[in-house]
């Protein structure tokens, strides 16, 4: 009986297509709205947990603490400014600090942020290099899985960064003197690190030194290297005087590859003549004539901090007491602020709570309307089909079958609406992520299904069942004798 019951139910539904589709559409719209809210909520909590990467404190320039968190952890805002490396070094050496990862931000490549940092950044996000290796020299980069996938970038590929979060190729010519080379691709982590281009802090410093300029800070740059003259011809500087850079140079001297050479970080250059000003073309090893000193990475902890700056410092505490002492101590310092990701994200939640609540209320109202719509549609159909129901009973259908047939109708309509609504929500988010970059950066692109959506589908079906119980009971009670009474 059951297959024929379903067939009859389906026949009933398609016999009144307009009413059925309107009912489905009404409920599907409600489901889509709820699905979007659920996805946003579930994704936000999952994603934030991953993106915050267990960071207890973000230290950066004074400004909005929320902006500091958004720019340094979620990478969806511009940084508040820079902090002197000397201040960062103090924090890195602080016994209350377990882990301190510096960030040098400011540039991007085709919408993907370039992050100057240390390999500790990759460890912070608990991921690893899937292909290639971590950088060992300035201008080498490791790219996130999404960067590789979306831009089709591979190991060995070279490119130039541009200021800010620019998408235009025209902007990418801003750092033509400092090409990056991909040396590693990270495994996918479903977190912000998938969308980052990660390199050494030296690389970012170098990118922000203008060839031939005197090294003064540039307003349009968020990150600034040391102020030295640049030498585009790549001479070796065996006997250069590098006052103020002793620590750095000492580090370089320790490098067995470059024992006697002084190599300020901003000497690292690519021979521009070998570039044809194409942003991401492959170069088959034609740039292998750099100074030896260019291959040295600075030790940020011990190098001379004179004139150096980083954008932020991601800190994990060594002890819980640090949560009390460290933020206060840092905020007391001029030019520095400490922002707690947990506090700021809570604040962000609170800011958006009103909007989310309004969305939830709207979704509940729409669901009720959707349920009512099913009730009205099925009730009307049941009234119009009273003789059909009586006929079924006369032909031998049990009252239970007639009841179940109505319930089936509610289940089919609501299931269809539920699936359509959830599908619609994911499609809309996919579309939105394609046209609204922050959604893509945040990773909310509709491609992920959450357990809560399973509950949503179940709930929608329940709404459908509840909506048809009354008409189903009326059908159950239809007296087949009315066929013999001949009253229509």
């Amino acid at each position: 009986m059951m297959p024929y019951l379903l067939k009859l139910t389906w026949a009933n539904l398609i016999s009144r297509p307009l009413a059925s589709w309107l009912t489905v559409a009404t409920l599907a719209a409600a489901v889509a709205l709820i699905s979007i809210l659920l996805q946003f909520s579930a994704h936000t909590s999952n994603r934030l947990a991953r993106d915050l990467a267990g960071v207890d404190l973000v230290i950066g320039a004074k400004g909005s603490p929320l902006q500091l968190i958004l720019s340094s952890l979620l990478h969806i805002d511009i940084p508040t400014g820079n902090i002197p490396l000397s201040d960062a070094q103090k924090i890195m050496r602080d016994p209350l600090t377990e882990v301190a990862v510096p960030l040098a931000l400011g540039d991007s490549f085709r919408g993907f942020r370039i992050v100057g940092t240390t390999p500790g950044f990759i460890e912070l996000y608990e991921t690893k290099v899937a292909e290639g290796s971590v950088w060992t020299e300035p201008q080498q980069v490791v790219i996130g899985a999404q960067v590789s996938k979306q831009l089709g970038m591979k190991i060995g590929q070279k490119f130039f960064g541009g200021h800010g979060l620019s998408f235009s190729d025209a902007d990418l010519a801003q750092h033509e003197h400092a090409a990056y080379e991909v040396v590693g691709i990270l495994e996918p982590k479903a977190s912000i690190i998938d969308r980052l281009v990660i390199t050494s802090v030296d690389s970012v410093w170098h990118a922000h030194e203008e060839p031939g300029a005197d090294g003064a800070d540039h307003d349009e740059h968020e990150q600034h290297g040391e102020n030295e003259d640049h030498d585009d011809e790549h001479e070796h500087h065996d006997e250069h005087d590098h006052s103020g850079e002793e620590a750095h140079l000492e580090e370089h001297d320790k490098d067995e590859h470059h024992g006697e050479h002084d190599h300020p970080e901003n000497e690292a250059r690519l021979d521009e003549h070998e570039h044809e000003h194409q942003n991401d073309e492959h170069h088959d090893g034609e740039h292998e004539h750099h100074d030896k000193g260019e291959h040295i990475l600075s030790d940020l902890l011990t190098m001379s901090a004179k004139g150096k700056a980083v954008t932020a410092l991601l800190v994990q505490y060594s002890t819980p007491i640090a949560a009390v002492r460290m933020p206060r101590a840092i905020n007391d310092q001029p030019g520095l602020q400490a922002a707690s990701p947990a506090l700021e994200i809570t604040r962000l939640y609170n800011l958006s709570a009103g909007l989310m609540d309004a969305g939830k209320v709207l979704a509940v109202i729409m669901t009720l309307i959707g349920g009512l719509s099913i009730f009205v549609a099925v009730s009307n159909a049941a009234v119009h089909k009273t003789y059909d129901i009586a006929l079924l009973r006369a032909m031998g259908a049990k009252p239970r079958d007639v009841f179940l047939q109505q319930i089936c109708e509610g289940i089919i309509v609501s299931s269809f609406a539920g699936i359509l609504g959830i599908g619609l929500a994911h499609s809309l988010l996919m579309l939105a992520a394609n046209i609204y970059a922050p959604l893509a950066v945040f990773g909310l692109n509709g491609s992920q299904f959450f357990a809560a959506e399973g509950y949503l589908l179940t709930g929608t079906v329940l709404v459908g069942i509840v909506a048809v119980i009354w008409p189903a009971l009326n059908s159950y009670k239809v007296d087949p004798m009315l066929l013999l009474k001949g009253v229509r």
Partner: protein
Amino acid sequence: MTGAPLLQITGLRHAYGDKQVLSLDSWQLLSGKHQLLLGPSGSGKTTLLGILSGLLSPTDGVIEALGKPFDPMSLSDLSNFRARNFGFVFQDHHLVSSLTVEENLRLAQHLAGLSEDSDWENQLFDRLGLSNLRKSKPASLSHGEAQRAAIARAAITRPKLLLADEPTSALDDENTHKVMELLKALSDQAGSTMLVASHDSRLKPFFDQTLALSKPEGPTA
């Protein structure tokens, strides 16, 4: 096969509130003996048809079909019994409106727990001139086509009892004759016994027996 009682009534009384509409001390329908329930409007023939088909419980009395009393049967058992043994042709030729003619026939087969019988189905469609209307919805059928489709639906399960309520109302003599010949022929072919309720005395020649029902005084056999 004739002779075995298909339906049997003992001490039947039925009333709507205080008004008794039917009283029948004893009556039986023998298998293979087509019978007409003849009476004017209000004589209780439709009520009797409802009671005999198990759609209506009598106020008093015992109804047996194929030797089984209806009384102890549950609603579910009675539904199954009806689906397997009875076929109905209603006055308004009711068909399930959302299904095609063919699907209406298949529904009857499914409800009776029978598998599809294509040969019999084709015979019925051919005999009733419905071959081109198999995929048609009831709403697109004419009055005559709908009546023939209803007859096909009633006969598809080869029921032991084929019940018809006023099958010839509003038909002229020629069409009355055609419909009754068709019903009789199909009943014989299906091995069904026909029980027809009608006010139309023109039908008497088509039946082996007639139960005449009258209004107030009760029935006379």
